[in-house]
Every structure is written in structure tokens, then in C-alpha cells.
């Protein structure tokens, strides 16, 4: 009898330990192994929930006016369609287009110019950027400590009410890791549940011929940095990866973005200069600016007839994942936590 209780007790303890890890991390079977180290930092429901609240809470900005979601809206695949360049605090305008957020567990480096080397570090860049949220971690910790709800959520997530920068960025990362997009028509075609139309199929062939080296399937990015031949902006004078590494060979290199949900994540390029996919194709077929660091894949001109461009766009639209865009688990939390914002 005692042995039975012991076994039941051990089973309960073991199950309790794994309770929070269940059903949060469900990587698509056709994706490669993730880069993020889940052994070091396993996902838990509590941390994901806390991270989601922080993601949508303007408390992270200096004057509580903007949140992460201000520039990373779920309905734009966590990009920002209102602005070509990021719109920050006090109506300040940044220097880069807010990139779409999805499938981040498969990325090693972040930002258009390799500025963030870890998902945990990434959140600190917009938070502390004077053009974006203009806030410092110590102030955020002070503000969060004033909230009984946040103290409780940190305790639920980490075992005590101690709020640190590390715990904030880990929670934000945990929520963002759940932003997985892998249920587009493309995915359903790949696993045999649907079929491309003839037009989409032709677009897919053209895609594989001209685009797939950099926008590699199934993530539709090779996560590398390339010079895609954009003429430099005379006002922004953005040198891309060179800004960070100071290596001449990195001049004008920018991160290859994913094409998943490209229908929702306009405008395009690091400075948001193109509003439509046809403008993007116009660049690749006739607007390449040659320089010493131009990607080797773009050395030869890409030729696409108008009907081929239409077919290619038809294929790109199969990368739209409405279940991702309208997933309520990703959307704004239903909480009174944000209003009215308490003032210092």
C-alpha cells in the first residue's frame, strides 16, 4: 500500500515538473532543428503569459506611450505597415523598417544589421533606443515593482517576486518563441493536404529558380546577410552590417527577411522603401545597383516577364498564414493591466 502511494507520489511530482512544458512548444515537423537552446531555457506557460503582457504593455517605454506591439502588430505579421521607418516615442522616426516577427527560434542573429546576437538581447535594443522606446532597464524594473500583478506574475514564472533585466528579456523571448507560422497554403501543399493552382505552381518554379537560395525553404530565409543591390538612401546613409562589424566586406549587407506572411508585412526592405511586391520584383529585375559587396546571386540579371511576375506573386501569397495572423493566443491580452497607466 505504502509502495503504491510512493509510486503515485513520484508520478505526480514528475508530472508537475513537466506540466508547463506541455503544448507550448510544438515545432512544425518539416522545420529544421531550432537554434534557440530550449534545454537551457525551457518554455513555460507562465513565462509565455508574462512575456505576452510585457510585449503589449507600454510600460516598457519611457513615457508609457508605446509597446513592442506598437511597431510589431499581430495583424501585420508582427511588422508595422503604417510606417516605412519605425515610429518611436514622442513621434520620433527611426532609421529602419520594423521587421516581421515569426519563427524566431530558428534565428541566430537579429535585426537588419546583425545588431542582436541573441533573442534575449534583441529586446533591449528597441527598449533603450532613444528613437524607439527610450527607456532603461532599471526604470522598467522600478515601474514593474510597483505593480502587484506583475510581482505576482514574476513569482509564478520564476519562483519569487524578484524582477531583473534577465527575467524581463527571457519572458519577452518566451512569448516571441511561440510566434510560429507554419500553416500557410504552402505548408498544406507540402504535406499533401492541398494543391497549388497552375499559376501558383509556375510561381513556385520561378521562386525556386530565382529566389530560393537566399529565401530558403521552409523558413524562407537563409538567416544570412546580403547586399541585395538597393541603391543607398542619401539621407539615411545606412551601411547595414558594416555599422556593427566595421568590416568593409560587410558594407551594405542586410539580413535576408523571411517571406512567410509577406502579404501582411509590407512595406519591404530594411528602410521600407517598397510598398508592393511588384515594386520589389521591379527592383530585382531592373533596379540592382552594383557595388563590390553585391550578392553573387544577383550578379546576373534576373529576367521575369510580366505574367511570370504575376505567377511569382501568386506563389508568394500562398505563404500567408491566416491562422497565425488571427491566432488569439498571439493577440492583445484581455487585461485591465494597461489602463489607466499609472504615472511616476
Amino acid at each position, binding site marked *: 500500500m505504502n*509502495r503504491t502511494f510512493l509510486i503515485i507520489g513520484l508520478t505526480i511530482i514528475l508530472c508537475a515538473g513537466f506540466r508547463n512544458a506541455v503544448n507550448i512548444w510544438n515545432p512544425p515537423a518539416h522545420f529544421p532543428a531550432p537554434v534557440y537552446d530550449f534545454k537551457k531555457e525551457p518554455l513555460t506557460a507562465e513565462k509565455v503569459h508574462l512575456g505576452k503582457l510585457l510585449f503589449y504593455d507600454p510600460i516598457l517605454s519611457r513615457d508609457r506611450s508605446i509597446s513592442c506591439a506598437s511597431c510589431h502588430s499581430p495583424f501585420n505579421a508582427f511588422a508595422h505597415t503604417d510606417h516605412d521607418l519605425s515610429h518611436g516615442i514622442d513621434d520620433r522616426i527611426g532609421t529602419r523598417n520594423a521587421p516581421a516577427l515569426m519563427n524566431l527560434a530558428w534565428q541566430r542573429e537579429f535585426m537588419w544589421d546583425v545588431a542582436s*546576437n541573441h533573442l534575449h538581447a534583441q529586446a533591449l535594443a528597441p527598449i533603450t533606443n532613444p528613437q524607439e522606446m527610450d527607456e532603461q532597464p532599471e526604470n522598467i524594473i522600478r515601474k514593474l515593482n510597483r505593480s502587484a500583478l506583475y510581482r505576482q506574475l514574476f513569482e509564478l514564472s520564476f519562483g519569487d517576486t524578484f524582477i531583473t*533585466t534577465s527575467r524581463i528579456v527571457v519572458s519577452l523571448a518566451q512569448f516571441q518563441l511561440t510566434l510560429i507560422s507554419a500553416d500557410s497554403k504552402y505548408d498544406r501543399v507540402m504535406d499533401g493536404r492541398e494543391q497549388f493552382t497552375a499559376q501558383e505552381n509556375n510561381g513556385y518554379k520561378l521562386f525556386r529558380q530565382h529566389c530560393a537560395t537566399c529565401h530558403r525553404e521552409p523558413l524562407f530565409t537563409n538567416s544570412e546577410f546580403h547586399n541585395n543591390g538597393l541603391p543607398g538612401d542619401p539621407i539615411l546613409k545606412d551601411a547595414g552590417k558594416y555599422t556593427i562589424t566595421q568590416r568593409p566586406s560587410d558594407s551594405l549587407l542586410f539580413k535576408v527577411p523571411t517571406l512567410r506572411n509577406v502579404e501582411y508585412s509590407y512595406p519591404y526592405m530594411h528602410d521600407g522603401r517598397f510598398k508592393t511586391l511588384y515594386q520589389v520584383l521591379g527592383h530585382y529585375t531592373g533596379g540592382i545597383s552594383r557595388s563590390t559587396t553585391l550578392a553573387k546571386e544577383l550578379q546576373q540579371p534576373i529576367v521575369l516577364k510580366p505574367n511570370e511576375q504575376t505567377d511569382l506573386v501568386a506563389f508568394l501569397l500562398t505563404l500567408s498564414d491566416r491562422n497565425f495572423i488571427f491566432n488569439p493566443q498571439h493577440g492583445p491580452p484581455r487585461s485591465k493591466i494597461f489602463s489607466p497607466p499609472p504615472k511616476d
Partner: protein
Amino acid sequence: MKKFHRNGLHWVMVIALIAAAPKWWNQRVHQETSYRTAQFRPLWVVQPVKENMELQLLNGDTLKLEQLKFYVSHMTLLLNGKVMWRSDEEGQLIDALHPEKSSIRLPAIPCNELRFLVGLDSATNCSGNFNGALDPVHGMFWSWQSGFIHFKIEGTSTACTERNNRFQYHLGGYRKPYETSDTVSIPITSGESIGIPLHVDRYFSLCSPAQQGHVMSPGKNAKELFQHALKMFAP
């Protein structure tokens, strides 16, 4: 079946004991090991340096130090070249102008050399770990390019032409060829505490605030000034 259950339970207990043993042993070693401190002591030639103390440069200009902070990592104790102990901490932050924040704890074991990395290695820079000494609230993390400032020297100098005569050297970077971390070796003797002199004057004999008032991003200049900063540790 009964026997299997009994034996199974025994095996569970044996595995649990084996799993717990290293932790128990470490705790035991930890409890039984005595420690001593190593204190970084900033000097201007032979004079101890304090925050905002007026310091005389060779050319007659003066300067005052407001910040002298740096990371140390891979702390290792050696005896005649043989490793006796190695720290498992990812990095410790030394705030050299504040004695209460400028010491490290070392085990009191036979050794005659202390070796450590000034700065943090690239793995730590890319780890996404912001706990303890690595918390950005310490002002040693560049969020705009994800990397730690390995060495921070700030203050004012009458000769510095920057605003408010302020000089700022934020020396860091982990990407080649501009990485800023290097190993230094300090000969030590036995005793309860170790004093590690930091010859601040040597740095300012090579870096003039009048010529170069600020360096605040990784690159060639940061690497060059970091090499000058390493000279503070030379015996």
C-alpha cells in the same frame, strides 16, 4: 512482479543517490574550503587612486577619474604552471574606484599565479545571459549592438576638448578582428588577501584625453585603447 517492484524501487533510490552525490560533494568541498580575497587597487604611480581625485599628467594637465570598471573572467589559480582551480563564473564586474566592489573571492589553496581574462569571451557575449554581473543595469552592455563593454574609463581632464572636459572610453567588442579581451597573469604569494595593483598612470601615458576624448564603440580604436588598458595589470 512483486520482486520486480521491490528491485525497481531499489534501483530508483540508487540512481537518486548517484544523481545527488556530486551536488552533495560540491557542497561539502564548498563548506570545507577557506577563501581569501584578491583586491584590485588602482594606483597613480604609487599613490592609491580614489574617485574624483586630482591626478597630474606628465605634461602638466590634470584629470579626475569617475569610473574605472571592467570585467574579469576565466579566473584560474596555478601552482608552477599547473592549474589548481578554475572559476565557473561567466564573468565578474570590478568597479575599481569602489573598494567594496573591487574584490574577488578565491579559494585559499597552494598557488603562485593568478591568471584571468580581462573582458568576456565571445560565447558569453552571445549567450543571452543577463544575470548577476552581466545585468545591463550595471551600464556595461551595448544594446544597440549586443555586446558587453569590457572596460569602461570615464572622467574629466583639463586638456580634454570634449563637452564639459569629459572623456569616455567604452572599450569592448568580441567580433574579429576587433575583439577586446586578453589574458593576464599575476604572480601571487600565499596569504589571506592579494592586492592586484592597477597602474592607471600607464594607460594615460599612452592615451591622451586631449588627443582622443572618447571611444564608445567596437573597432580599431577600441582595440588599441584596450591594449593600453591591459598595461595597467603588468607587474
